């Protein structure tokens, strides 16, 4: 699926028997959000974590950039366990896009996109050039959008800026948590198509969380299905629908449901 298979073996992510539990330790009421996850994500792969709400897919994503630390096992990113990473360094080398975009309302579009470069003390000219490049990449005219503020953008435009911001420092890994989930169906389909082409061109390792099978089939090079904090299937989009498992079938039947109905 990737135009150029990236040779950087170090940009893989590996889950080694990872468990993440919450709850009071003393009262023995710990509740595992994900349990015993082992999974290797290869460089350049677009891995879609598919599952219902509460299946643990967002938790897995947040374990990768150390927004969470595993309570059991290890998450290894670029050859190093996240617990050994300086969280700031790790996060600046991993792009992150969330559903509501989370743009800073007091920053202009350019300041939002240039956030990580600014934190990394790039000089102003280099940052400005990068911002312009990224705006063009995500299909927004730099002349029109550079100085706008997030509240002057549509939902789709905000999400495009969110993607541009995540790509700013050219991170090898991109994490996306239902980035198109809050958009209207037409805009969503538009962004999915464009992002699919963009992902192929960029050759980055992408971990993408969604509950929408249609989206997973469109974007994934591999789909991992989660249920109640465990991986129950892992397959290419071509093979996925043939898996004989009730949860896979439940998702498959959602495809035939009314258009626009939540998967």
């Amino acid at each position, binding site marked *: 699926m990737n135009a150029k298979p990236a040779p950087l073996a170090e940009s893989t992510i590996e889950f080694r028997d990872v468990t993440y539990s919450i709850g009071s330790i003393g009262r023995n009421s710990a509740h595992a959000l994900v349990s015993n996850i082992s999974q290797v994500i290869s460089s350049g792969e677009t891995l879609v974590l598919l599952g219902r709400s509460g299946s643990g897919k967002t938790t897995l994503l947040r374990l990768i950039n150390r927004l969470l630390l595993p309570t059991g096992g290890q998450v290894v990113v670029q050859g190093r366990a996240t617990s050994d990473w300086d969280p700031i360094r*790790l*996060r600046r080398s991993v792009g992150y896009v*969330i559903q*509501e975009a989370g743009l800073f309302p007091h920053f202009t579009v350019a300041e939002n996109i240039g956030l990580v470069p600014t934190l990394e003390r790039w000089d102003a000219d280099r940052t400005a050039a990068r911002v312009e490049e990224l705006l063009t990449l995500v299909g927004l005219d730099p002349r029109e959008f550079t100085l706008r503020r997030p509240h002057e953008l549509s939902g789709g435009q905000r999400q495009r800026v969110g993607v541009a911001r995540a790509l700013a420092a050219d991170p090898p890994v991109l994490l996306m948590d239902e980035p198109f989930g809050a958009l209207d169906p037409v805009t969503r389909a538009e962004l999915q198509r464009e992002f699919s082409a963009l992902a192929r061109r960029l050759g980055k390792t992408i971990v993408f969380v969604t509950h929408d099978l249609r989206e997973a089939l469109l974007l994934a090079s591999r789909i991992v299905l989660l249920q109640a904090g465990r991986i129950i299937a892992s397959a290419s989009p071509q093979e996925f629908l043939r898996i004989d498992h009730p949860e896979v079938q439940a998702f498959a039947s959602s495809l035939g449901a009314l258009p626009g109905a939540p998967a």
Partner: protein
Amino acid sequence: MTPWTFFLEHRSEILEAMLAHLMLVVTAMAFAIAIGVPLGLLVVHRPTLRNISLGIASVFQTIPSLALFGFLIPIPFIGGIGRRTAIVALVLYALLPILRNTYVGLTGIDPAVLEAAEAMGMTDAQIVWRVRFPLALPVILAGIRTATILTIGIATIAAAIGAGGLGTFIFRGVAMVNDAVILAGAIPAALLAILADILLGWIERRLHIV
């Protein structure tokens, strides 16, 4: 004697009292902001300290102002008769709105924005100074505005402990049973409050970006 003729005859005296009043308020507000805003920043991640400081600030708010001025007189260093005691009391009153709004402003930020800030690799200090504080500023300013108006009103009572200001006319007028003298203190105080409200409201609106 009508209030108007009293105004005209004593205009320089009234103006002087107005300036003294304003100085009391400005000094007290400067201290209250210097204490309240940093304290609000400090308690964002410290729930125990937050409850204690908000609790104490609320208690002062419930003490009637005349009583608080009275309580402070016998206290060494900060007490006694005069401006210093009045300023201490005014700071105590102004603290709650400033502290509470600072805290509410800093914590009432869209969780998606904070999550993005953390995930982009901002340090805790960068999140406070580049995200939380600028976004909280309009709310903090609203607290300062409330506190300023409150302080302008309460500062009239400060005349009771010899701090001067527009309260001097009000107390004198009450003692003389003379409405004109009371109004010579009350009207300028009301005008000060309205002007402060308009000015700070204007600044607050300019800070709103969304």
